[in-house]
């Protein structure tokens, strides 16, 4: 009995520590976003704001360029995810067990290597390429580049999930006169929707959170994303508008936390599949 008690004290103690370690910084920024500038810079620091003061949100988002940055982030995140999903569903199918062909293994190795390419390794040639095709400082340019970065992992995840679909179902459909695209659309996709949800979640997060490529390829409100905008004004000890930036930071993580709330199981499934099955 005493042992059982000790065990639960230890477990709950560790659980509280873990929750504090994770939540304190995030909550602190949330509180900062609701304070006036005076309260933010007060000494000794005030823990709670005097009231719910949304000035930081209204000022930065309604008056500044931040609403354009938010639109750009959303456009690139949603559009990039759509493009990746269309391409990756087709590719994942091509690399799954439903097809056997000579080039399959070399192509799969190419996809794995592509997944490892660091952004920094390609920005210089892409800088010239985007300039010459008029895609520099455009949302479409960033969308295409981020889609290429997120595509290999999405393909690999879908391939491993499609591999779990029983062959017998697909064979039965083929005998019934279903073409290969019919098998994909009518048999495989409907039963793989948890896999699709996982892949969408991971792809959207990858693109939404991305930084180096938007940093290099966006200059104006035409295409600049939220992380780039934050990085431009967050650097330095003094003169930073901590309250305003906290509001932008909260806006930037809202979609992420919404996904965390509603799609956590898919995220977890996709993440562990990506790590376990390769």
């Amino acid at each position, binding site marked *: 009995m005493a042992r059982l008690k000790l065990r*639960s004290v230890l*477990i*709950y103690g560790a*659980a509280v520590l*873990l*929750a504090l*370690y994770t*939540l304190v*910084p*995030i909550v*602190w*920024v949330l509180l*900062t976003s609701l304070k006036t500038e005076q309260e933010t810079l007060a*000494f*000794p*620091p005030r823990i709670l704001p005097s009231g719910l003061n949304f000035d930081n949100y209204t000022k930065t988002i309604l008056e500044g360029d931040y609403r354009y940055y938010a639109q750009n982030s959303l456009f690139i995140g949603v559009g990039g995810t759509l493009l990746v999903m269309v*391409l*990756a569903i*087709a*590719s994942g199918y*091509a690399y799954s067990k439903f097809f056997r*062909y000579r*080039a*399959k293994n070399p*192509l799969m190795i*190419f*996809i794995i*290597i*592509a997944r*490892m390419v*660091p952004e*920094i*390794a*390609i920005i*210089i*040639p*892409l800088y010239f*390429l985007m300039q010459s095709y008029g895609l520099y400082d455009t949302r479409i340019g960033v969308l295409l580049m981020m*889609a290429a970065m997120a*595509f290999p992992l999405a393909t690999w995840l879908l391939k491993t999930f499609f591999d779990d679909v029983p062959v017998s179902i697909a064979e039965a459909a083929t005998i019934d006169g279903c073409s*290969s*695209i019919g098998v994909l659309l009518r048999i495989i996709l409907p039963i793989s929707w948890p896999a699709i949800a996982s892949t969408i979640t991971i792809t959207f997060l990858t693109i*939404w959170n991305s*930084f*180096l490529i938007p940093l290099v390829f966006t200059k104006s409100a035409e295409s600049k994303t939220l*992380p780039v905008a*934050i*990085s431009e004004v967050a650097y330095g*000890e*003094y003169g930073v508008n*901590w309250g305003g930036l906290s509001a932008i*930071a909260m806006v*930037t993580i809202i979609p*992420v936390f919404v996904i965390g709330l509603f799609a956590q199981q898919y995220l*977890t499934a996709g*993440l*562990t599949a990506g*790590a*376990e099955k*390769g």
Partner: protein
Amino acid sequence: MARRLAPYLYALPGLLLLAVILAYPIGRGFYLSLHKYNLSSFSPPEYIGFENYKALFDDPMFIGAFQHTLIFVIVSLALEFVIGLMIALLLHQNFKGRNVLRGIALLPWMMPPVVTAFVWAWMLNGTYGILNYGLVKVGLISKPIAWLSSTDLALPVLIFVDVWQSTPFVMLVLLAGLQNIPESLYEAARIDGADALRSFRHITLPLLKPSASVALLMRTMIALRFFDAVWVMTRGGPASSTEVLATYAYKKSMLGFRMGFGSAATTVIFLLSFVMSIGYIWLILRRED
């Protein structure tokens, strides 16, 4: 015939995207790295062989960036695996509120690294930061510490920020590994008289190795290109004490316009990742056998 062509047709659009946006730039980057190509001088690329690489390895700042990257990779991965395993073991227990806690524990991993860096830059701010205030109040330090403007502390702080952000990934992979270990193994060990510590050493750790090794490779590859938090928090400073490979290459090319020299630096980073991906392919192939 159509049936034989089908997989190629499905794979083609994706391959085209990768060819244009990944493969071509890698090749082009290597080509540029063999040239002197300075955008600020308006002269066309001039072939100079491997001179850029020689200059790169003669540059003490590059060597410094290399060393900082190595320290960063080794220390942060070691911490992430130790802390990640501890959290995974905790979340593997049965207790009320476990699922909620798991959701909370994942949050840092989902946040944009730029936001994470901002959050900690604010927490650690020398003048207004809540952490300094708390530490002084408790009596652990006598006066506020300038965390990010100290050449001794800036790199450890960046390591800490990455550990805060990336441990959930490692934890999740290890947790999935733990859940795959059959309970019967532990029961058999108990019958044989093994205590908890022994079964942890002889059952848990060895059986976690496959998932841990994949996670280790993936984390290494991502840590090698560490950029976002450095750029937001220190820009490589103070006095280059947090310069890493990616910030070095970014500064030389995008800010210094030395496209040939910068390409040599990015080619080195690519080769490091490439070696990692060979190891990764080897791991996967070995498992499929």
